[in-house]
């Protein structure tokens, strides 16, 4: 799972440009998925257990990551950009990026400290005032390498800090993608559609049509979620804690999980001896926000991973959290296969 995660993390995939991530997943899934299809938005849907009876599950993980898009090329060859997804402007100075289909390397730099005047040193440079420097000396030179509308992603190498903690970009939600693949390495007890969705970071858009296509009886969203447990792990504002196991959500900004399904998930974790934690905030949202509103409504729960520094060039997750989450997904599928979707 670590090798796949490394590959997925280093893949280029801002919202709307998920092809490279999808290609990796297609290669992974081709040997054992019973069907593989790509929908008009670019969602990848892999079906398993087609002949099985029982409620139809949808397991969703999003392929896209936050990034940028080039919206103007200056006469002197610099690129202007807009953010794609939620990024804090304060992290942008000194960022290294890759631009467009040719993955042209670029940098975002600011005025040297020595030449800042007045209050500049204490002020945040807005992303609209920043530039990407690709080394081009003129607009014409830049246009040979980059076109308007080129997507831009962080340029970050994956790294293992220990046997447990790994770092890289886009772990939100490539970790979810890797978990979904891993969870279905053994045949499921009921029909399952894995949906690798596009455009989550700009409004949960891929999941909406993926859910309409799959028409599931229930859904599980695999996500990477906020983790602010440093420097104070005991802070009530930590949301989650790295290494404390998979995260269950009672409510966030985009959905309130189906109560019966959530209780069944909790009982599954308890019965299997899987340590889990609650996301201690209602901030943030995920594909559940779209999926649960599909058709006549879909009972939906999230199983998330604590992810420090998500939406920056370098985030951290725990592999043991990931493994436990996969174990929980598998156990939950068996539980629902046995007991059905509560209330349905």
């Amino acid at each position, binding site marked *: 799972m670590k090798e796949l995660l490394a590959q997925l993390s280093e893949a280029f995939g801002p919202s709307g440009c998920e092809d490279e991530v999808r290609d990796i997943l297609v290669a992974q899934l081709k040997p054992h998925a019973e069907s593989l299809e790509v929908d008009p938005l670019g969602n990848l849907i892999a079906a398993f257990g087609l002949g099985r009876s029982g409620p139809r599950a949808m397991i969703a993980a999003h392929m896209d990551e936050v990034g940028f898009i080039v919206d103007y090329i200056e006469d002197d060859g*610099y690129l202007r950009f807009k953010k794609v997804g939620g990024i804090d402007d304060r992290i942008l100075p000194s960022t290294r990026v890759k631009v467009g289909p040719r993955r042209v390397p670029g940098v975002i730099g600011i005025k040297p400290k020595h030449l800042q005047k007045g209050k500049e040193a204490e002020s945040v440079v807005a992303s609209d005032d920043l530039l990407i420097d690709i080394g081009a*000396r003129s607009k014409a030179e830049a246009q040979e390498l980059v076109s308007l509308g080129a997507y831009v992603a962080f340029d970050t190498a994956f790294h293992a800090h220990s046997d447990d903690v790994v770092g890289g970009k886009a772990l939100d939600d490539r970790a979810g993608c890797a978990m979904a693949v891993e969870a279905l390495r053994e045949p499921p007890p009921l029909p399952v559609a894995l949906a690798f969705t596009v455009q989550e970071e700009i409004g949960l858009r891929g999941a909406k049509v993926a859910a309409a296509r799959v028409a599931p009886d229930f859904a599980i969203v695999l996500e990477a979620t906020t983790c602010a447990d440093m420097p*104070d792990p005991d802070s009530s504002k930590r949301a989650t804690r790295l290494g404390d196991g998979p995260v269950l959500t009672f409510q966030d900004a985009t959905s309130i999980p189906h109560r019966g399904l959530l209780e069944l998930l909790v009982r599954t974790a308890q019965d299997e001896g899987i340590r889990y934690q609650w996301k201690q905030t209602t901030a943030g949202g995920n594909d559940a926000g779209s999926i649960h509103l599909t058709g006549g409504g879909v009972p939906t729960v999230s199983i998330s991973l604590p992810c420090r520094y998500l939406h920056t060039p370098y985030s951290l997750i725990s592999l043991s959290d990931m493994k436990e989450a996969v174990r929980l997904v598998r156990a939950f599928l068996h539980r629902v296969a046995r007991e059905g979707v509560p209330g349905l």
Partner: protein
Amino acid sequence: MADLRARAAALLEQLTSFPAVSGREEPLREFLKEHLTFVDEVWTDALGNLYARLKANASSGEKTPKLMLAAHMDEIGLVVTAIEKSGALRVAPVGGVDLRNLLAAQVIVHTQGGPLPGVIGTIPPHLTQAKDRTQLPSWDDLYIDLGLDAEAVLSRVRPGDPVSMRREGTWLANGRYTGKALDNRAGLAAAIAACEALAERCRPADVILVATAQEEVGMRGAVVAAQSLSPDVAIAIDVGFADMPGLARRETIQMGKGPALSIGANIHPGVRELLVQAAQEAEIDVQVEVLPASSGTDAWPIQVANQGVPTGIVSIPLRYMHSTVEVVDIADVAQAAELLAQFAAMLTAERMGGWHGERITGSTE
């Protein structure tokens, strides 16, 4: 020139791969000790400066000039000040670090047991308000997360461990190289490439390349280096502010337009004139960088070492100084190397005439 460009490029890639936070330059110094095999002598001193001497191989008349080429090897960084119970590391800046370049940056903590990669922690946008995102954190809020449990951190990290930025260099378009510590690996690469070229050339002067320590915390290595060498002439090779949007043209020099020859009180007019002649001789375009008082380079202390040293500055244009995305144009680095080699080859006792003052009347005998 094509050879020199390839050489400068290879050196730049190599030199940026070794950390050398001010006062903790040992990894780069050890590399240089091994690498500088083409010189006659290599030695170090108590401040951590590294010296490499190429002896003169041609006559220069009455006296063999002693030329000091000073390029600082240290880089800005951080130092661990305290370790929280959680394993989060608190840090202070070493040199002129702009906090705005640090948020979410990757770093390497250099411990006794080896390097540990980490990241400067930030709060995700999901958990901050819009108004929080317009405020910079303070140095006291900053911490490094090593992705290790607290016990592992406490057993491996000590206050005082140096922290360098984790960023590998890479090439942009048009021979532009980006990375951290190009201030002043670009200058050091130029100085080394110049000495390599000089090893094959006729040189009437003794040339001593000094990779100076602790420039970024107040040009301290150069103080000692110049005092102990007592050179007849010195050139500091460093980087200058290159053009970028938001900076006035008069504040900057241009990328790709050749090295700049600084002018001002810190620069001896005779030395500068010979640099101009050397540039003409080598057919190199040079720019002018006007420095009203302190150059902020090693040239500042060198000029006033002992009884005074005629000193010049060769400045390589560099964008986004003191960040991990600094950019230089390799052509500028190669041309600086060519210029330095040409200057050294032209430096004879005769050409230094008058640079060291004169006795106007009386006698000490």
